[in-house]
């Protein structure tokens, strides 16, 4: 598949890891340059470097990591990056279909809507359009080779994958890609509409995987492609529940058994280190202090008002202006007494500031013992697709199928 040598050789496909969100495949071609935001590199510099090395740029503007490709990394390096979330689906399907070294697998996928679709009957096109509209990212998913690469890895040289691509351009591109990745012996790629024309193999596959908008229409063909001398399995990958229901009916009618359906997701977590959480005891103390402070102030203000009143009485008969002023003072004094809520903004209980102060005290007594916490990312994928599975029992004389 890809190079298993320790060091990178000319012609190897490597994965250049720039950042977690910026990963790109690279065919090491001596003489070529790589000029990116993270510096300037020459492909020659990568030759002979062990896989997994950090490589500094020639102009000192950053570095990259050069990794050995895996189907998972390859998926991450694709332009449709969200697809790594399908790891859960691909992994689960591989296990449920029991894909292992030596397995023979049939896969039918459909890439983006293309010109070839217009040749279909109008209602098919409308339906497809609707589906593509609902899940624009989805059909690019396995059609982009994520599943194919993963399966090719798992079945190895003794197994085989027949991959059927509906979209002509995508088919020829994928074919090129498989050849470049040394998978030409393992993967046979055919451009065709399997719903209409069926598969090129008969009674040959251990497992069939359908990533089609109307999987039910390909089920009779899928049954033909499956081996009849042992138990075989099928998986249909559909984002909508209506698709699942029609698929289940079709599977049942075609004689498949053990029909089950799953949803599998990954919830990525972010890890953080936070200072130890504060006790409400602290908050309690701070509130008590604030309350005391406010009360002290109120008492001071009452005392001041009384003083003012006394002074006022002494100066009775003085100018009107002075009287007005003292009246204003009385009013403000009263307000403090009765309207305590208004008082708070005047004397804000700065919880944060105060607690920051108190935690400084705590910090001085013990070193900053941070706690590690984790939580799911604020936005995670809530749905990828429904995975419908079924088995086909061997058609041997020991079983009489018709009841």
């Amino acid at each position, binding site marked *: 598949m890809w190079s298993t040598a320790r060091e990178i050789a000319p012609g190897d496909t490597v994965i250049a890891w720039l950042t977690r969100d910026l990963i790109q495949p690279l065919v090491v071609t001596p003489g070529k340059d790589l000029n990116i935001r993270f510096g300037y590199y020459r492909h020659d510099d990568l030759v002979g470097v062990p896989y*997994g090395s950090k490589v500094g740029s020639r102009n000192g503007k950053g570095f990259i990591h050069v990794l050995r490709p895996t189907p998972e990394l390859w998926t991450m390096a694709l332009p449709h990056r969200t697809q790594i979330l399908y790891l859960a689906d691909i992994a689960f399907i591989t296990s449920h279909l029991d894909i292992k070294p030596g397995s023979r697998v049939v896969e039918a996928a459909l890439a983006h809507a293309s010109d070839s679709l217009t040749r279909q009957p109008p209602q098919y096109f409308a339906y497809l359009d609707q589906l593509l509209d609902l899940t624009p990212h989805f059909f690019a998913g396995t059609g982009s080779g994520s599943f194919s690469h993963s399966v090719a890895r798992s079945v190895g040289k003794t197994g085989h994958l027949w991959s059927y691509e509906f979209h002509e351009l995508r088919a020829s591109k994928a074919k090129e890609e498989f050849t470049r990745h040394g998978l030409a012996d393992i993967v046979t790629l055919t451009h065709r509409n399997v719903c209409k024309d069926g598969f090129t193999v008969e009674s040959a596959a251990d497992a069939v995987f359908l990533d089609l908008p109307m999987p039910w229409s390909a089920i009779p063909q899928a049954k033909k492609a499956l081996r009849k001398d042992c138990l075989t399995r099928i998986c249909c990958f559909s984002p909508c529940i209506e698709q699942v229901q029609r698929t289940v009916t079709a599977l049942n009618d075609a004689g498949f058994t053990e029909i089950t359906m799953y949803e599998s997701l990954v919830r990525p977590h972010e890890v953080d280190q936070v200072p130890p959480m504060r006790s409400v005891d602290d908050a309690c103390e701070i509130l008590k202090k604030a309350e005391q402070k406010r009360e002290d102030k109120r008492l001071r203000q009452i005392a001041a008002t009384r003083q003012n009143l006394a002074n006022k009485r002494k100066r009775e008969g003085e100018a009107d202006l002075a009287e007005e002023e003292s009246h204003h003072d009385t009013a403000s004094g009263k307000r403090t007494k009765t309207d305590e809520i208004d008082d708070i903004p005047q004397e804000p209980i700065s919880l944060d500031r105060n607690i920051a102060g108190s935690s400084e005290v705590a910090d001085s007594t013990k070193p900053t013992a941070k706690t590690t916490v984790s939580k799911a990312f604020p936005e995670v994928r809530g749905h990828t697709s429904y995975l419908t599975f079924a088995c086909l029992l061997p058609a041997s004389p020991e079983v009489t199928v018709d009841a």
Partner: protein
Amino acid sequence: MAEEASTQNKIRSGDTVLLRIPNGDTRSVKVEKDLIVSIGRLGSFSSNELIDHHYGLTFEIVGKNLVVLPPQNIQELEETDATNEHIVGDGSVKPVTPEEMAAMKEAGVHVSVPFSQSNLREVCPCFLQDIIKKQIDQHTNFELKTEYSKDKYKKKKEAKYAKVFTTIPPTLFNVCEYWYNKDQGRIRDLRIDALSQMLNLANIRPGGRYLVVDDASGLVVSGVLHRMGGQGRVLTICDVETPPAYPVMTQMNFPPEFKSIMASLNWATCQEDYTPIISTWDVEEDQIRSDKQRIRVNKRRAASDFLQSTREDLFAGEFEALVVASEYDPQSILKRLNKYLGGSCNIVIHSPYAQILSDLQVVMRASAEYLSPALSEVWLRRYQILPGRTHPMMNMSGAGGFILHATKVYDDPSAVPVEAHRRLQAKLATETQKSSDIVPSQQEEGDVAMTDAT
């Protein structure tokens, strides 16, 4: 190849076979030629009846023999207007007495049609149908039930009385499910979706070289070996003196060549500076007195040589993945095994607890040897998909555990991060700006120094 796969799908003598019984439970039974298999209330039969049959078939126990039943379909149910409005739980169901039951069993005929046929009365009279019919007759409110409710009732009764079972193919999926349902603690909450993701993230493929630390009863090792098909190399590190039993492997029914690529070391013997204490009995050839002694000496020598070669294999390093599901501190595991991991090696660690892996993630993040350690939780939901009755299962497993994945990389301390470079550039730029303010014309360094001096 095709032939090989086909025989792999058949039950062989010596296999440990999983059987699903009507109440939904799974039993694990040993199938050996001429051995009698007993599955509790369902009865018993001879192993020979199962051997050479394909996995996945459904059988009925008739006397001491087995009869293969045809595959079952899901039956569509017809909607009726029935509701539960007239049904009151007044004990109107008269149970069938044990005497009646015995009489029916006595006269019993085996079931030769799918027992989930919705219209029981039309199929041939047999013990199961008789018994259910009898119960239905005594259930005065039965006809008031909705079709769905009737179906549920019949299914419940079938599960109770049917003497049928289905053999479950020994796939990783099925074996994992069996163990998860049986005792998820023993496999450290490693649910099949988590295990599948681990195997994919670790890039397990035929021909690879992997290090495995498995305290999950051998589930991880089984998964790795299953995906390698007897090609490559697996070293497991364990906490017991002799190679561990890995009980999960029993149900996988691996051919011997699948297991031969695996060898085990323990936490002491995997240490380079530790010399394992093996009394090799450095006995000279001429000192061996008896054949018995010679066998013993040879055996010990072989064991010692095997241990030594396994150790050398580990110390040679360059492993492609480290897969861990262990009761030990993952940080301590990494510390010991890190030096044997090759560049770009996938490190995949499972734990039932997020806390353990988040602590580990913090440590790994601080190290330049690990690229992008990422923590995730697995989530899996199964659906009931009966026609007109599709919905998620009312109960789902909430504990599949957490996975941490990272890539081992070789650091280059001289490489400058792009941000640091930008800061440096910015600093240089401001400095040049300043100096050019002082010296209007472009001058050589020496000139600048001279101007500064003046």
